[in-house]
């Protein structure tokens, strides 16, 4: 294991998996965490693929991958904590929600979209789900134009179509937050 000299490398007991981001940066991750990424799991499910193989994740930036790994690691820890105990489950659920909130809180709009793309590509269902909910919160009570800018959508309605759409649901266009 490489030691960059700035930090002593922790004792990574047990199997690890190497994941390579789009810029070539390699992340060595505990196997249990790596398997949270269904894309990675499928990669190794194929016969004859050794666990030493570096998994190329061409569509994921190292920034996004770092965050994904951090989230999945803590999600795995939390899942280990919950069990038959109702109280423990509840606590784990709260902690997980706190973890999700923490992840999105400081994230810019671009960052959150990048995470959605990563979570989608890596096939991490729970992560994709809460990220989409978080985006929903961000466009809550925003104008149609704001939503277009957020998703980088072109208004391809003709003036007549646009007029008709607005008339059909005129009530929905009132009282939105100022852009």
């Amino acid at each position, binding site marked *: 294991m*490489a030691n960059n000299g700035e930090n002593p490398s922790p004792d990574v007991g047990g199997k690890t998996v190497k994941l390579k981001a789009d810029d070539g940066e390699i992340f060595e991750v505990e196997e249990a965490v790596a398997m949270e990424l269904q894309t990675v799991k499928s990669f190794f499910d194929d016969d004859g693929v050794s666990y030493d193989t570096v998994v190329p994740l061409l569509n994921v930036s190292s920034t996004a991958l770092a965050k994904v790994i951090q989230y999945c690691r803590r999600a795995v820890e939390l899942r280990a904590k919950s069990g038959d105990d109702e109280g423990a489950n509840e606590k784990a659920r709260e902690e997980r929600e706190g973890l999700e909130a923490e992840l999105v809180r400081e994230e810019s709009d671009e960052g959150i979209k*990048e995470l*959605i793309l990563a979570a989608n590509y890596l096939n991490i269902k729970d992560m994709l789900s809460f990220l*989409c909910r978080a985006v929903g919160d961000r466009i809550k009570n925003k104008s149609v134009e704001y939503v277009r800018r957020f998703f980088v959508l072109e*208004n391809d309605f003709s003036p007549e179509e646009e007029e008709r759409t607005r008339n059909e649901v*005129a*009530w929905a266009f009132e009282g939105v937050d100022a852009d």
Partner: protein
Amino acid sequence: MEFNDDEAPRVFVADDSLLQRKLQKRRLTELTPKEESQLKGRLSKLPKDLINEVGKRLINYVDYVRLRSTCKSLKSMLPNTPNHQLSQVPWLMLPHDNVSKTRFSFLNPLENKMYNFDIPEVKGMLLQGSLYGWILAVDGYPELCLINPFTRAQIQLPPLDTFLDVLRFDPNVPNKEYLISGKRSYLHNQKTHARGVAYFRKVFVRKVVLSTNPTSNEFTALAIYGEFEELAFCTSGDKKWTKLKVPRFGEDVLKENFMF
């Protein structure tokens, strides 16, 4: 990047402290509109199916409508009436002002906001809500339908004159358009008696309950009707109401006890 391009990428053991430092160095900042237009070509564009995933998780119907209004492809991809569970908190429908008989106010408790809009289809009708977001509009004439106040779509229910007890409807007999069967002691054993459109608008159908969202292909409607609070049902597509013989019941326990 932190390392020279001609070096082999370093392998970081991805423990948290290292990751934290990476995250700090590569903070993504929010774009100002100016930066946005400069970077337009490089901004992340979610494919439509992922925007759909966002749409499916919107709690507030109004946000859903606005998302749908952004562009053509989303308008066609997101169904007009969303299939997913929007917030189950019902909107409160308030009576129209006396000036316009078709203008209604809807209070969305989630936002604590009032929306006003026109539903010309229900002019002059008596309304019942709580039908999975649809409204039952009754004007006393036989035609019965459910109206979606937001899309103004309509779903037909069997007409009022298909209830078993209703023998006929004749619009040419003012105030006695309907002929109803059955003995009523106060009518001195007449076999039938007549009622007008006004009665049918205000009183005849007391309540309708649906088994599920009427947009599904198979829903059952249950109606409490008539002077003696009798029961009838129909399934989607039925041409008439079918009377049910059940022991006496109370209106409030209706939905709980009846197994659809």
